[in-house]
Structures are given as C-alpha cells and as structure tokens.
C-alpha cells in the first residue's frame, strides 16, 4: 500500500525547469502545504532570506528589503566571493495574497517580469515561477551571463546538500 500511495509524489515534488518559449522560462514545484503558507514564505523578508540563497553557493545575502504590496519595492544585495556587492531590485506590479506575486527586475536594462503563482491542489500548493523576458535576446543573454558559473557553484552545492539535511 505504501508503494501505491507513493507512486506519484516522487515525480511531483521535483523541481522542473522549462524554457516555454523564446522569451519565457518556467520553474514548477509542488509543496506539501496550503498556498497561504508558501505565500508567507515568499512575502515575509525574514522568511524569504532564509531559503532564497542556497547555503554553500558562495553567495551571501547582505540585505533584503521587501515591501510585498502592489506598487511596493524590493532590493536584495548580495556579496559573491571577493567581488563587489550586487544588487537586485524592482517593484511589485501586482500582489494577490495567497495567490500570486508579480514583480519587475530592474537591475538590467531589459529585465524580465517575474510572476509566481500559488495554486491550491487539495491542500498542497503547485508553485509556478514564470519569467517573461522582453525579447529572445534578453533571455539568451541572461542565460549566457550566468551559464558558466552556475554549474561550479552547484557542484559545491551538491556536496553540501546532504549535510544540510540533518
């Protein structure tokens, strides 16, 4: 019986990433909690900062200001290794509590618009993280900018993750 009931969650709980079109990137994941909880973890900076930056990735989140309301602003500042700090900032275009958050990414000229939706699936939450870039070139460039470095960081992460689970 155990095997039967566990048939699907293995696949469902996995994080999936898809380039949905030339301009769109989508990340999906199922969480074992109702939308209001998952939403809270995105909307409260003191919770958000605890999971957004993976441990061991060589990146430190220096500050995290988020005013998660329609028209509100956010600003995240990171330090990566010995390199200068990097800031990510923008504003919330639309916030529907427990349902969705839409924000701009303004640190770049041609920034994406990100939409996160929290969909109730029988007490669980299907989270969809959707990025819409202004052009194919902008998405290509975003991928080019981070392509080479990420795998290394993530290899470190792979080594670290088993120890985090304790």
């Amino acid at each position, binding site marked *: 019986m155990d095997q039967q009931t566990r048939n699907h969650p293995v696949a469902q709980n996995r994080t999936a990433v898809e380039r949905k079109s030339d301009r769109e990137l989508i990340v999906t994941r199922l*969480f074992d909690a109702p939308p209001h909880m998952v939403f809270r973890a995105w909307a409260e900076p003191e919770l958000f900062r605890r999971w957004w930056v993976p441990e061991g990735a060589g990146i430190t989140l220096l500050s995290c200001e988020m005013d998660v309301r329609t028209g509100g602003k956010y600003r995240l500042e990171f330090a990566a290794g010995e390199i200068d700090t990097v800031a990510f900032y923008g504003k919330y275009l639309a916030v529907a509590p427990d349902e969705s958050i839409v924000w701009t990414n303004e640190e770049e000229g041609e920034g994406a618009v990100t939409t996160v939706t929290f969909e109730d699936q029988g007490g669980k939450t299907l989270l969809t993280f959707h990025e819409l870039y202004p052009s194919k070139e902008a998405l290509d460039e975003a991928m080019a*900018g*981070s*392509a080479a470095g990420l795998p290394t960081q993530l290899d470190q992460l792979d080594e670290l993750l088993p120890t985090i689970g304790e």
Partner: protein
Amino acid sequence: MVQYMMPSLDLSFAALSDTTRRGVLEQLGRADASITSLADRFHMTLTGMKKHVAVLERAGLVVTEKVGRVRTCKLGRCGLEAEAEWIEAHRKLFEARFDALDKIILEMKQEEDDGPANA
C-alpha cells in the same frame, strides 16, 4: 546579471555570427573534416580557414585533433549542450532553494500545530 561567470555563450554567439563558420558547423555535423578540406570546400586559404576554426574552437563548438600532419575538426559538445546545461543548473539552484523552503514550511506547520490553540 551577476558578472562572476564566464561568457561561454557569448563566445558561441560571436562564433555563430559568421556565415562561413555556420557553414563549417553544418559541414562538421555531417562528417569530421580536415582544415585543408574545409578550406577547399569554402574556397578560402588555409590560413583563413584556420582562423575561423580557431574562433569555433575557442567557443567550444569545434574540437580539433592533429594526427600526423593533418588537423581534423569535429563538432564540440559545449555550444550545442549549453542551453540544456544551463537549464539543469537553474533547476538545481531552484531545487536547493525549494528544499530549504520545505524546511521553513515544516517549521510553520509545527508552529500552527503547537501555537494558536489559545489564539
């Protein structure tokens, strides 16, 4: 984006911006070839073709191997798989985030269970 990463895709795009180099890739997609035969096929000097191949090689789109006096070119794997690799790297990043988020959710659930009975 964060500039602590290497521009491997930039090199790919630069390499692909030239008609001859795209033709060379197409050709190598069918069969490996020596620089001499590529120069013949694209009606250019050996030196000219060497330059094009060098650009493709730097971008990881082509690898070359010298056997005896002949340098053979074949398709590299880097450029072709770069997007797939990026997607996988991105997936790992989000998976790490979401695993951490899972733990926070677990804490929140415990708080709800323990806490607000008298709230």
